[in-house]
C-alpha cells in the first residue's frame, strides 16, 4: 500500500549528477595540468612567499611622504577619467535604451559596440594607451575613460529602461519632440541613479587606477612597479597601505552619498 513510488534507473542513481560531477573533476584535472599546477613545489617554496610577507610586514614608514603625491594623482586620474567616460556614455546610453529608441537596428549596433568595449580588461587598455600617447598620467586618464564608458553606459541604459513611462506619454501627448521628452521626462527620473552610478564607477576606477602605473600610465602604480623591481618590499607595503587607506576613504564617502541619493 505505502510503497515508495519507483523512479527510473537514471533518476535513482542520480545519473545526471554523476555525469556533471565527472565532467567537472575532469575539467579541474585538465586545467591543473594545463596551468602547470605543482603542489610539491608550492609547499616547498612556500617559505619564500612567507619571507616576502615577512619583509612586507615591516614597512618603511619614511617612504610615506613620497607616496602621497602619486596616490593623489591616482584619484585625480580616476576623477577625470570617470567624468570623460560618463560624458561620452550619456548619449550612447540614451541611444541604447529600448524605451527611447524604438529602432532596433540602431540599438543593436550601439549595444554591440558597448559590449565590445566592456570585454577589454583595464591593464590591456593601459598598455595600448601608453603606446599611443606615451608614458604618463594622460594614458591612465584615457584608459579609465574608455573603461568607465563601457561600464557606465550599460548601467545608464538599464536605469533608463526602468523609468515610469507615464510622464513620457504625457509629454509626447503635448507635442514635445524627442529631445524635449528626454530632457523633461527622462532626465529628472534618472538623475539620482546617474549620480549614484557615477560614484560607483568612480570607486571601481580608483581601485583600477592604482595598478595602471605598473605599465607606465601614471599614478601610484609607477612606484609600485619600481619598488617591486628593486625588491624593496618594505616600500611595496607602504604603497599597498596607502592604496588601502585611499580606497577605503573613497568607498566610505561614495557609499554615504549614494545611500542619501537613493
Amino acid at each position: 500500500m505505502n510503497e515508495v513510488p519507483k523512479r527510473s534507473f537514471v533518476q535513482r542513481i542520480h545519473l545526471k549528477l554523476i555525469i556533471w560531477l565527472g565532467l567537472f573533476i575532469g575539467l579541474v584535472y585538465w586545467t591543473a595540468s594545463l596551468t602547470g599546477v605543482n603542489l610539491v613545489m608550492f609547499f616547498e617554496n612556500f617559505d619564500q612567499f612567507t619571507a616576502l610577507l615577512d619583509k612586507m610586514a615591516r614597512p618603511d614608514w619614511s617612504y610615506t611622504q613620497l607616496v602621497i603625491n602619486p596616490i593623489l594623482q591616482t584619484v585625480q586620474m580616476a576623477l577625470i577619467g570617470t567624468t570623460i567616460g560618463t560624458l561620452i556614455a550619456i548619449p550612447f546610453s540614451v541611444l541604447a535604451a529600448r524605451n527611447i529608441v524604438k529602432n532596433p537596428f540602431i540599438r543593436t549596433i550601439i549595444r554591440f559596440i558597448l559590449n565590445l568595449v566592456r570585454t577589454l580588461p583595464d591593464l590591456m587598455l593601459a598598455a595600448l594607451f601608453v603606446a599611443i600617447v606615451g608614458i604618463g598620467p594622460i594614458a591612465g586618464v584615457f584608459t579609465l575613460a574608455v573603461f568607465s564608458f563601457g561600464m557606465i553606459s550599460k548601467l545608464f541604459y538599464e536605469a533608463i529602461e526602468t523609468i515610469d513611462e507615464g510622464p513620457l506619454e504625457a509629454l509626447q501627448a503635448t507635442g514635445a519632440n524627442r529631445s524635449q521628452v528626454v530632457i523633461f521626462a527622462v532626465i529628472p527620473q534618472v538623475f539620482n541613479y546617474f549620480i549614484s552610478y557615477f560614484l560607483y564607477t568612480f570607486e571601481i576606477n580608483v581601485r583600477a587606477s592604482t595598478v595602471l602605473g605598473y605599465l607606465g600610465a601614471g599614478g601610484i602604480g609607477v612606484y609600485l612597479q619600481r619598488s617591486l623591481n628593486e625588491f624593496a618590499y618594505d616600500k611595496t607595503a607602504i604603497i599597498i597601505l596607502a592604496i588601502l587607506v585611499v580606497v577605503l576613504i573613497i568607498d566610505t564617502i561614495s557609499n554615504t552619498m549614494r545611500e542619501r541619493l537613493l
Partner: protein
Amino acid sequence: MKSATLTTNHLPKQKQLKWGFWFLIIAILFGWAFAGVPFHGFQNSAAEISKSIMYGIFHPDWAYVYDGSGEDLVGLTLQTLAMAFLGTFISALLSVPFAFWAARKGSQRIHLRSTSGKVVLTLIRTFPEIVLAIMFIKAVGPGSFAGVLAVSVHSIGMLGKLFSESIENMDGGPGEALTSAGGNHAQTLTFATLPTVIPEFLSYTLYRFEIAVRSASILGMVGAGGIGTPLLFAIQTRSWSRVGIILLGIIVTVTLIDFVSGSIRKRLV
C-alpha cells in the same frame, strides 16, 4: 499670510545656496584634479600609432591563431581560461569558510566575529591582484601556476563578501523548522542552510569566473601566464597585426564566456 510669504521667499534661497555650495565643491574638485594631471599634448607619433593599431586590428596576424606549438592564440587562450577556471574554483571553496566567518547573525551592527571577517575580506579585495601575482611568481616561478594562485586568493575578497551577504539575507524559516524538529546544528546546515544558499553561491561563482577571465588575460603582463605575455610583448615591439589578433581573440573569448555563463546563471536562481 505673513508666514506664507516668508516660506515662499525662504525656500528657493536655501535651495540656491545648496546648489551653489555643491557647484563650488565640484568646481574645486575638478580644478584640483586637472592640476594633478598636466596635459602637454600627445607625443608626435600618437596619430600614426593609432592608425597602425587600427590597421593591425583590421589586418590581424591570422597565422598566429594556431601553429600547433601551444604558444599560439588558441593554446594561450585555453591556458588563460584554465587559469580563470581553476583559480575561481579554488577560490569558491576557500570563500565558504570566510563567508560564514563574515556573515552577521541577528541585528547587531558591530559583532566581533563578523566584523573582523568583513575587514579581512575588504583587505583581500583591495590588495592588488598583480602584486599578488608577482609575490606568487617569487614562490613558484613565472607562469600560469602563479596566475592560478593569484586568482584564487584575490577572488576570495569578492566571493566571500557575496557569499556572506547571501547567508545574511537567507530565509531563516527552514532552519527554524529543522531546529524545532529536533535537528542539531550540523543537520540544520545540511538540510536547510546549504540547499538554500548553494544555487546562489554557484551563480556568484560563475559571475566571478567571468571577471576572472578578464583578469587572467592581463596577469601575463607581469609574467603570470596566459595570453597577457605575448600581448604586452607585441605592443612593445609594435607588431600591430599580432596585437590585433590577440585583441580579437580576447574579445571573442570574453563575449562567449559571458554569454554561456550568463545563460547558466539565469537558470540557476
